[in-house]
């Protein structure tokens, strides 16, 4: 489930239509996370459990103005009662040097499972949020992002 990918695609077309003849990114950086290292980090979080799509909503603007600070909100559909609540929410990325972004610990007192922060994204990539519920199940959502770079930056 990749709700954002449709609008992200639109944004890419808009940029091209706006006259960017070519947009080449050659960013030198140390070893970076890969889809494989993200998979490994997810495995470390969920163990052998199955991760199902649904219940989690990952909100990130489809077109990122600056990868240095990207607003991110995770919502989980949960009553947040003592019997049925979200225990942890982990956020992973594919292409930063490290696959982990943040791990949030919640409890029923939160009243609702809703967390926002701002993250860094060095490149266009997939972001995954996985919630662990009190019954031991894991639920996820994914967003595909296009990161562009601003004009007139310092050298």
């Amino acid at each position: 489930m990749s709700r954002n990918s449709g609008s992200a695609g639109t944004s890419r077309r808009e940029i091209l239509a706006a006259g960017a003849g070519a947009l080449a990114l050659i960013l030198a950086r140390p070893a970076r996370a890969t889809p494989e290292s993200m998979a490994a980090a997810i495995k470390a979080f969920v163990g052998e459990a199955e991760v199902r799509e649904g219940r989690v909503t990952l909100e990130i603007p489809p077109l990122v103005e600056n990868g240095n600070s990207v607003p991110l909100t995770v919502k989980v559909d949960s009553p947040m009662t003592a019997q049925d609540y979200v225990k942890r929410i982990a956020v992973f990325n594919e292409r930063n040097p490290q696959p982990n972004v943040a791990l949030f610990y919640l409890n029923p007192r939160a009243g609702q499972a809703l967390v926002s922060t701002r993250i860094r994204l060095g490149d266009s990539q997939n972001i995954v949020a996985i919630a662990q519920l009190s019954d031991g199940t894991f639920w996820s959502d994914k967003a595909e992002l296009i990161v562009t770079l601003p004009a007139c930056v310092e050298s």
Partner: protein
Amino acid sequence: MARALINVPAKAKRGEIIEIKALISHPMETGYRTGPDGALVPRDIINRFICTYNGVEIFSADLFPAIAANPFFSFTTTATESGRIAFRWIDDRGQAHLETAEIAVE
């Protein structure tokens, strides 16, 4: 270590779900960036954030270099009783920054 801004409503009704915001100044140096001399700038991030309500943890986070500089969080809690909401950010050197806010619950 830093300057922080927190937003907790001063008053709330018992049982009301309130939004809490916390912002702190910190470069969140990733450890992957090279400085002007070409050498890697050592990692220096806030790696842990904890919020307690009258001493009981209501929210916490483990943080990685992918959290943006000047970290911002918002989350919710249920207003249960009057008292103190405390915030603690801990960096790689083990230094902590503390902030507190009072809430009146009726």
